[in-house]
């Protein structure tokens, strides 16, 4: 079993051009007709906006005074890199990525490993229940956790106090807001858990039997067989989460509003971009920030893809 990303191969990049027979021409035309919604959509909603966004980033385009659009050259970029608030936004986003990415990678593996245990009863019910938080609307999720993490009346602090630990003010202090956001994030891994579980279930049993014959214990089996066999899905998760975390801002936006409270701790890159583009209507600056993010995301993706050959194990290619 492999992921969507295994479609990224050199073989797929090969473009064969040749004269098509009349029949083949007909087939290709039908095919293109069926693909046309996506091809048109790709240009309309992805490719052209991408280019337009690059062009905007070199202008002073602001929706509030749209008559006066000037070519600004690199001015937006210079302003961005000289802006202390931009520095804060980058620092906040990277710090939070470092905290939450490892958890977002490990948590679905642990949950799937538990659900994949042969001796666990009521597996389907457990799987459904573990998945369930994923389908709760984001605003409800934030409000529920806001209540649970309330310093005085929330269940987390009531539980902590019952064992003699004074609970912190999770959502109003700089030191505890990231742990609070991580806790909220625990509810968002349902999809990754299901992918991981399906991949684990697809591991050939001969591998486990061979390990048992060699006298491997439960932990060694997990580490030397299960983990390598699920590396494609770990990789998939890593790529998607790394890009997703760069755009993270809706949860802190609903939880704390658009100003980065407490004390700039939630001044995420996405929050800054949202304010520049949609609160101040500065489309030039918004586009500049979007492209800086995009270039960074490309670099991250290339780095991740280039590490693939050292640790990601695609079983299908070996056979």
């Amino acid at each position, binding site marked *: 079993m492999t992921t969507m990303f295994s479609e990224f191969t050199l073989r797929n990049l090969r473009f064969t051009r040749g004269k098509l027979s009349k029949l083949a021409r007909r087939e290709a035309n039908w095919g293109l007709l069926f693909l046309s919604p996506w091809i048109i959509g790709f240009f309309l*909603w992805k490719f052209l906006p991408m280019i337009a966004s690059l062009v905007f980033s070199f202008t002073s385009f602001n929706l509030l005074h749209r008559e006066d659009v000037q070519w600004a050259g690199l001015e937006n970029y210079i302003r961005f890199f000289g802006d202390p608030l931009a520095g804060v936004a980058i620092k906040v986003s990277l710090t939070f990525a470092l905290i939450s990415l490892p958890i977002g990678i490990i948590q679905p593996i642990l949950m799937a490993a538990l659900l994949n245990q042969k001796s666990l009863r009521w597996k389907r019910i457990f799987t459904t229940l573990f998945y369930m938080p994923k389908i709760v609307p984001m605003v409800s999720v934030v409000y529920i956790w806001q209540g649970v993490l309330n310093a005085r009346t929330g269940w987390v602090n009531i539980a902590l106090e019952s064992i003699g630990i004074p609970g912190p003010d999770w959502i109003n202090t700089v030191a505890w807001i990231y742990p609070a956001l991580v806790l909220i994030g625990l509810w968002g891994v349902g999809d990754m858990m299901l992918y991981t579980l399906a991949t684990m279930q697809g591991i050939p049993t001969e591998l486990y039997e061979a390990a048992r014959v060699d006298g491997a214990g439960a932990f060694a089996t997990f580490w030397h067989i299960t983990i390598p066999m699920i590396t494609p899905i770990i990789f998939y998760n890593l790529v998607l989460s790394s890009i997703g975390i760069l755009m993270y801002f809706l949860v802190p936006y609903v939880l704390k509003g658009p100003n980065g409270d407490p004390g700039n701790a939630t001044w995420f890159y996405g929050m800054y971009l949202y304010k520049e583009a949609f609160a101040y209507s500065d489309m030039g600056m918004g586009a500049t920030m979007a492209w800086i993010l995009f270039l960074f995301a490309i670099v991250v993706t290339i780095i991740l893809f280039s590490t693939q050959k050292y640790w990601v194990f695609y079983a299908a290619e070996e056979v």
Partner: protein
Amino acid sequence: MAIRTDRSTTLLSNRMRVFLFSASLTLFALIIISTYLSPFGYMTVTAIKDRSMIADPNAPILPSKEATFNYEGQELAVYLVPTEDGKVHEWAILKKGREESTFIDPTNLEAGPTEWTGRWRTLERVWSVSPVWENFSEAWKGLNMPRLLRNTLVIAITGSIGTLISCIAVAYGFSRFRIPGKNILFMALISTIILPEFVTIVPTYVVFERIGWIGTWLPLIIPHFFANAYNVFLLRQFFMTIPKELDEAAMIDGASPMRILFSVILPQSIPAIVAVGMFHFMWSWNDFFQPLLYLSTERELQPISIGIQLYNARYFAQPHMIQASSLLGLLVPIIIFFLAQRIFMQGIVFTGVEK
């Protein structure tokens, strides 16, 4: 090392060990899942609490109200009253005095009123469990739920139709036709899942603004008629599992590609189609960012995700109302999920991994 000779005890103890392992593992999973889902408990319990409980630090966790006792036509407050013999009684207060008050024991009326020395203000009230279901009707009215539901349903259902039509067509094109450069097109499709949304959102917003779509439902519906990577991938995966011989047989009978799609492919793909329809419906129900951009000034047109947020901003210090509306907001997705969880979860697996 002891050598076991009695085979039956070994067998029994082995089965016992297997059972114990299974039981303790399941118990462990039960503990984990109840912790993991406990915030739902908090939400439910808080949603049916009375307003008076919110401010009181001594209020119990379960929704309750302060107990009263009807004595000769009077509603008397019930307190926990400690007496000199070390017992604590649940007595109703009859006459309040600064240093001395009169109580009556609701379980023993014949004993008559009792004098108690002490300050009644220092006593704790007795709580009796009593959920306040009216919170939901208040939230339902305050949120204007009928309007929010109507808006959300229109946006979600039309978007789902668009997603289904376009993704089925595109997936059919990718799975069944030899097209020059198809692999490159497919890689371009997959790459769009790693294209950050922010890159396209600014110019798209500007264009929607130009053509007067801001403050309408169109930006939330029309783009979904142009297919998306996840659902095309899912349907393509599914279509590829349908044997090609079936279409070839139909083709020999003179069926057009359109006819093959409707009479061969679609009837075999009902679960995948249901899954895609549900994914879009749920996604649209939960989407917050796009309605925030395009509908923040149009109260009449807002879907539930935005409606709840505005409502709660007004009820900052009323957790019971906030939780009641959170519950109303998640009810529809949760019900749909539980009705069709098998198809839903199989579909999720199909979007992410190839078999």
